[in-house]
């Protein structure tokens, strides 16, 4: 599911019309507007513009630039990206207001974007996916995979001057699994957490009730960044919107429905080795503003209300890439790409041949080029290609081939003349798809593509919450989903039979072998073993055609040219620690 979805659905059915209108305005208005902007910037920085925009167009280079040498503990090589200048502020436009900034509580990606400036994790993940010391300088995993011993830094203090120590870690993790906390996301990241033992002030043992391979990945996310126990205990409810961590930015203010302001933590001296510099951040202030409406977010950037935006609207990608005032950072998040989950219990998608034909009949390339304006790339399986344990085998399963799709249906007894909707035993080949606003750009294209092989898709528009209920109750055959995740364990939420009843197991596919490999993958600590289990899981999912993969989730950003060294972490969240303003 797209993160824009819930908020942009505010306008219900009107949004698509509005988007259309907006585009027509742009055609009318942008020609003169854009021309004058270009003229203005041409006069300003004529000479350095070409090389800058060349950098930005390169897919991975913008993110890779700040990575440094992740494996080497020594840092401070300032050969490539120059020393940043201190000072200045940056305003970031995001698409949703976070619910709160207590890592134990919030499940939202936008909260993560904000929290990663306020909190430090025990371990960091470099852009290559390596685990790098953070608040923990070292860690040891017992052979049975049940005990993790973390050695902690002894020179870290929270923004409220509380010293960071083993007790802070223990209190936080205990709070995460306390049912009264109602943690839905962080609690999932520490899985079978049992307890934590304070060995001494700067050493803590985390005890699990079962092996859980994704633990380090979970601990590397801001959702498990360590908050100040003093501040949280003093006012648990106030803490939700008054967060205190150890990060390079301190929380300053939150104006409901408008913005959050963070200010530089002058005492910050524990940056991980993955960054270009150490010590305090360069920027004095980071303001985060919320723009649920796509055209508005872009207009806010162009009007100078903000300096950088997340979720650059796909339709404006190439225009912004061509604009010398901005650099565009393209990225696709790891995890589950945009896929169509298909019910295996509601006719006609209960028929394997039908599901397989749907996948074969969908031409992802065209969808990406035409409907997504080239803002992303085609997906071929339930995991995006940069997710750990991604199996490239999925790519060969169902290449787009309308003829073979038609043949599959023919063989399975779904017949009909050319151009007709196929039938079998008096039942027409009609598939119901619960669509929401996020599907608008491509839904009709998919519908037209599968119509070519004689399958009719009926688009049923509903609001997001209603569509979940519809697919779970088998009132429709398909619904799209897509999740950011840096560990393949995410597949469990979608395909393990324990999540059919009340969770996101919409396919209702119940296969003991699939459950088994998903469980084994979760427990195996050896990466090669995990690759094997998750490889098999991906194979089972595609063999049984449980999902029709569409494309990677675009996480493109546009940044004012004078802001330099804005990085992206492994999960494509923006990194502002190294960011500075070039005067």
């Amino acid at each position: 599911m797209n993160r824009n979805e819930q908020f942009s659905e505010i306008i219900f059915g009107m949004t698509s019309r509005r988007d259309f209108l907006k585009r027509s305005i742009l055609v009318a208005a942008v020609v003169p507007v854009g021309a004058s902007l270009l003229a203005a910037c041409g006069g300003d920085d004529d000479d350095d513009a070409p090389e800058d925009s060349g950098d930005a167009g390169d897919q991975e280079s913008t993110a890779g630039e700040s990575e440094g040498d992740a494996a080497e503990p020594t840092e401070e090589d300032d050969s490539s990206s120059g020393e940043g200048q201190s000072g200045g502020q940056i305003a970031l436009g995001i698409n949703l207001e976070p619910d709160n900034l207590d890592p134990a509580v919030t499940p939202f990606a936008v909260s993560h974007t904000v929290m990663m400036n306020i909190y430090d994790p025990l371990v960091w993940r470099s852009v290559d996916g390596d685990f790098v010391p953070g608040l923990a300088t070292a860690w040891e995993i017992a052979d049975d995979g049940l005990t993790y011993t973390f050695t902690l830094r002894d020179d870290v203090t929270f923004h409220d001057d509380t010293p960071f120590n083993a007790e802070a870690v223990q209190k936080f993790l205990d709070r995460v699994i306390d049912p009264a906390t109602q943690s839905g996301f962080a609690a999932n990241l520490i899985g079978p957490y049992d307890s934590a033992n304070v060995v001494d002030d700067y050493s803590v043992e985390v005890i699990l009730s079962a092996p859980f391979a994704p633990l380090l990945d979970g601990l590397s996310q801001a959702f498990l960044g360590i908050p100040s126990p003093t501040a949280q205990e003093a006012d648990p409810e106030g803490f939700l919107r008054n967060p205190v961590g150890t990060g390079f930015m301190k929380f300053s203010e939150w104006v409901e429905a408008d913005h959050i302001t963070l200010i530089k933590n002058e005492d910050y001296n524990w940056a991980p080795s993955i960054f270009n510099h150490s010590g305090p951040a360069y920027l004095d202030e980071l303001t985060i503003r919320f723009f649920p409406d796509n055209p508005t977010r872009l207009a806010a950037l162009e009007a100078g209300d903000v300096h950088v935006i997340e979720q650059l609207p796909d339709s404006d990608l190439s225009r912004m890439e061509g604009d010398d005032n901005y650099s565009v950072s393209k990225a696709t998040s790891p995890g589950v790409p945009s896929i169509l989950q298909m019910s295996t219990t509601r006719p006609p998608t209960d028929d394997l041949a039908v599901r397989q034909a749907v996948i074969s009949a969908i031409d992802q390339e065209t969808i990406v080029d035409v409907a997504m304006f080239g803002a992303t790339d085609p997906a071929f399986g339930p995991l995006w290609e940069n997710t750990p344990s991604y199996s490239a085998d999925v790519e060969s399963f169902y290449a787009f081939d309308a003829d073979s799709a038609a043949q599959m249906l023919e063989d399975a007894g779904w017949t009909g003349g050319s151009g007709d909707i196929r039938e079998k035993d008096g039942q027409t080949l009609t598939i119901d798809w619960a669509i929401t606003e996020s599907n608008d750009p491509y839904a009709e294209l998919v519908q037209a593509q599968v119509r070519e092989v004689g399958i009719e898709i009926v688009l049923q528009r509903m609001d997001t919450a209603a569509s979940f209920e519809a697919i779970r109750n088998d009132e429709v055959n398909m619904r799209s989903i897509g999740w950011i995740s840096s560990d393949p364990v995410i597949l469990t939420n979608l395909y393990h039979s324990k999540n059919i009843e009340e969770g996101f197991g919409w396919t209702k596919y119940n296969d003991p072998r699939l459950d088994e490999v998903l469980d084994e993958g979760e427990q195996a600590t050896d990466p090669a073993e995990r690759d094997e289990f998750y490889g098999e899981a991906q194979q089972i999912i595609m063999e049984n055609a449980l999902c029709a993969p569409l494309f990677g989730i675009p996480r493109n950003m546009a940044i004012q040219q004078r802001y330099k060294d804005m990085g992206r972490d492994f999960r494509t969240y923006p990194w502002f620690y190294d960011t500075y303003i070039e005067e």
Partner: protein
Amino acid sequence: MTQYLLGRIAAMVPVLFIVSLIVFMMIHLLPGDPVEAMYAETGTSAERMSQIREELGLNDPLPQQYVRFLGDVFTGDLRSIRTRQPVFDQFRAVFPKTLQLAFASLVIAIAIGVPLGMIAADHQHSWLDYFSMTISFLGVSIPNFWLALLLIYAFAVNRSWFPATGADGLRALILPAFVLAVQQAALIARLVRANMVEVLQEDYIKTARSKGLPHRAVMWRHALQNALLPTITLIGINFGYLLSGAVIVETVFARPGVGRLIVDGILAKDFPLVQGAILLTALTYLVVNLLTDISYAFVDPRIKY
């Protein structure tokens, strides 16, 4: 007057009670579950979600949930499921912004609409009349999200006269207030014109004219004052509507407001938030209505309470 006021205020209680019951039933009848809507963005397990549902009491029978809701309203402990903030605090944070926007747009609407309607009535069936009424027709028919984007690109992106978005200060208020005012102004102009045309036929206007009163005095003092009563009703209703109905403009201008709070709440199936915010909106609506009725007495000396 005091007795009248007390009576009116007492009558609000049953209205609010009925509103709370209807809103509760409607939001619970809609398909969808708040916990699922919340965790669908990043994904979690069925086990976690059912645990949270249990903690929130979403599995309890509806009458029990309704009683708990009423209890939370009275103890002031009604909290949003999504943000876990007190609903009253969230409402209070955005309400002043909504009030500003509603008030500013009404001022602009009156400033445009009343003179436009008067000119049209004064020059009935002349080109001025047709011109004003065409403008007003346009005002009613222009979709406000379209106008909003057009103005943003014209006056915030192309020329940075105003910020494109936000609610920071007076400059940020002008564009959204104007967009909202356009439709109101058009309605007011049409209503003022119709009433003025009628009033201008009245005998007392002829009397005033024959007394030799200047045209301006006749128009403003005698005609307008009498033509204004239905307009005040319209303004009152519109003001009430603007307190929660400015969602689209609030969204396009990324402005905090009550309308957005409620619509976001509905989409997230955030039951306590929606129920609480609508209850508070209903209350403000009732108060605005009361104020409108009281203002009649000031405009028309014949009306006394």
